[in-house]
């Protein structure tokens, strides 16, 4: 993946009145990859994506999407990208199939509409008007509309909000197939499991800036504390165990016989714990390493207080 990034953002600034929505944001998005943009409400995710889509003008910084300026080169750009808005975007009286067929007609080499309808389970929508479709059906139609024109790059704004588990998995599967065929995807989401399952790259945004960036594995490993647990006989000498462990590591007996060690859990630490147990004649039953989830990392970075 050494090719040019499909999205290149440098020092992006966007203000609404006196409120700064995006505050010097830098982000590169790799070709052929799935990039998840995470962040609390109001962090600037949708604003950033909508600037990339050409809907809003930046107040500062530069944005290049597929090498183009999203505002100045809007006409050339919009034939090459696919867009799924957070909601709406469909005539309220239109049926799913006719809306999708209509979108297909605006493109030169659209996907086979019947196959796409089948693929996303939209066949059941029949003659129902868009406004009477379920939230999940509306979401899947919006996704189908984003991909029907065979774009190089798709922007999905919370693509699985309101979907049932089956529809979520169908959506994820489609995004993986798109990736396998070389389509680049940028998605915003509130679901950490979605980012862990789907994303090659994650960017966490808060207060208009990227505050963490990497693969889900890198983010879960780096920074955050991990935990090692085991059970043994009650009343082990925790102070002696602590002495054996490196600085910055904590050990405690949570309930009689249940021990927890937290810190930088790595193979060396595991070996230290097991050899201490061997020296003290302890069999560490149920020894387990708990890796932190992306959600832990996210909450650690962005705080736990509620956002507007």
């Amino acid at each position, binding site marked *: 993946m050494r090719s040019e990034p499909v999205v290149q953002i440098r020092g992006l600034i966007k203000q609404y009145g006196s409120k700064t929505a995006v505050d010097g944001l830098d982000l590169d998005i790799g070709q052929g990859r799935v990039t998840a943009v995470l962040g609390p409400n109001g962090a600037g995710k949708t604003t950033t994506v909508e600037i990339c889509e050409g*809907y809003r003008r930046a107040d500062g910084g530069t944005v290049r999407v597929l090498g183009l300026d999203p505002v100045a080169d809007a006409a050339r750009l919009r*034939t090459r*990208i696919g867009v799924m808005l957070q909601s*709406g975007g*469909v005539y309220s009286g*239109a049926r799913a199939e006719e809306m999708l067929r209509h979108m297909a007609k605006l493109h030169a080499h659209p996907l086979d509409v019947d*196959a796409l309808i089948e693929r996303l389970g939209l066949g059941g929508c029949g003659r129902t008007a868009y406004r009477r479709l379920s939230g999940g059906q509306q979401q899947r139609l919006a996704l189908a509309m984003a991909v029907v024109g065979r774009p*190089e790059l798709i922007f999905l704004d919370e693509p699985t909000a309101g979907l049932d588990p089956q529809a979520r998995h169908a959506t994820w599967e489609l995004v993986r197939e798109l990736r396998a065929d070389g389509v680049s995807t940028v998605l915003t989401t509130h679901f950490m499991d979605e980012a862990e399952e789907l994303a090659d790259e994650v960017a966490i945004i808060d207060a208009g800036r990227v505050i963490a960036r990497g693969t889900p594995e890198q983010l879960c490993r780096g920074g955050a504390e991990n935990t090692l647990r085991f059970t043994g006989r009650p009343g082990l000498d925790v102070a002696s165990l602590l002495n054996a462990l490196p600085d910055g590591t904590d050990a405690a007996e949570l309930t009689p016989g249940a021990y927890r060690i937290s810190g930088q859990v790595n193979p060396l630490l595991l070996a230290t714990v097991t050899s201490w147990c061997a020296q003290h004649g302890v069999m560490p039953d149920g020894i387990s390493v708990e890796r932190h989830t992306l959600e832990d990392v996210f909450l650690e970075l962005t705080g736990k207080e509620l956002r507007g």
Partner: protein
Amino acid sequence: MSTGTYAPKPGAAPLGRMIAAQTAFETRMLLRNGEQLLLTVVIPSLLLVLFSTVDIIDTGTGRPVDFLAPGVLALAVMSTAFTGQAIATGFERRYGVLKRLGASPLPRWALMSAKTLSVLVTEVLQIALLTAIAFALGWSPEGDPFSVLLLLALGTAAFSGLGLLMAGTLRAEATLAAANLVFLLLLMGGGVIVPLERFPDGVESVLALLPISALSDGLRDVLQHGAALPWGSLGVLAVWAVLGLGAASRFFRWE
């Protein structure tokens, strides 16, 4: 689907094909909407039949249908180009349809062209129906078709500009209420079924400057009285068209 199905192959359809597809789609949405049909087809037809056959309003000398048919044609143009277009576009804006189409290969000017073509297609259908009803009621029109077409075209431009101005600036619910209210007021006070001479002199001269009055009286000058090119009416409509379309292009907000 098999591997390679989604391999990128982007591109816009040819412009003509996009506009044709968008026009057909918009027209289908419009003809499917029951409230729109009430406004564009049912009300004008009912007014034409009712007031031509029942002597409720004094329409002057001559047969009522000769007075009413031009007024109802003007009403048909207003119902589609102004009321219908304002309401439909207002809700398309509200539900992000205009926004979503803004990210499609269809340029904005092409979307607006398709909307205009869709209005014209609807007007052709309305005029065919209303003309047939009028003939069945014994209508005998005068005048030259060119003047009629010119009046209808300028009337459409004037009403489209005002309708889009409303749709692009007000909330969808406000547009819905205001467009219906304006429809009703102009139906009563725009020379459609009630001759403007029935109003007091001062009021009449103000009402005569409304686009609906200019269109209905202009059509009446030609179709009832056989006049060629009614310049006064054409001038009023042209001013409204320039003001309405100018303000709409200046103030229209897509989101």
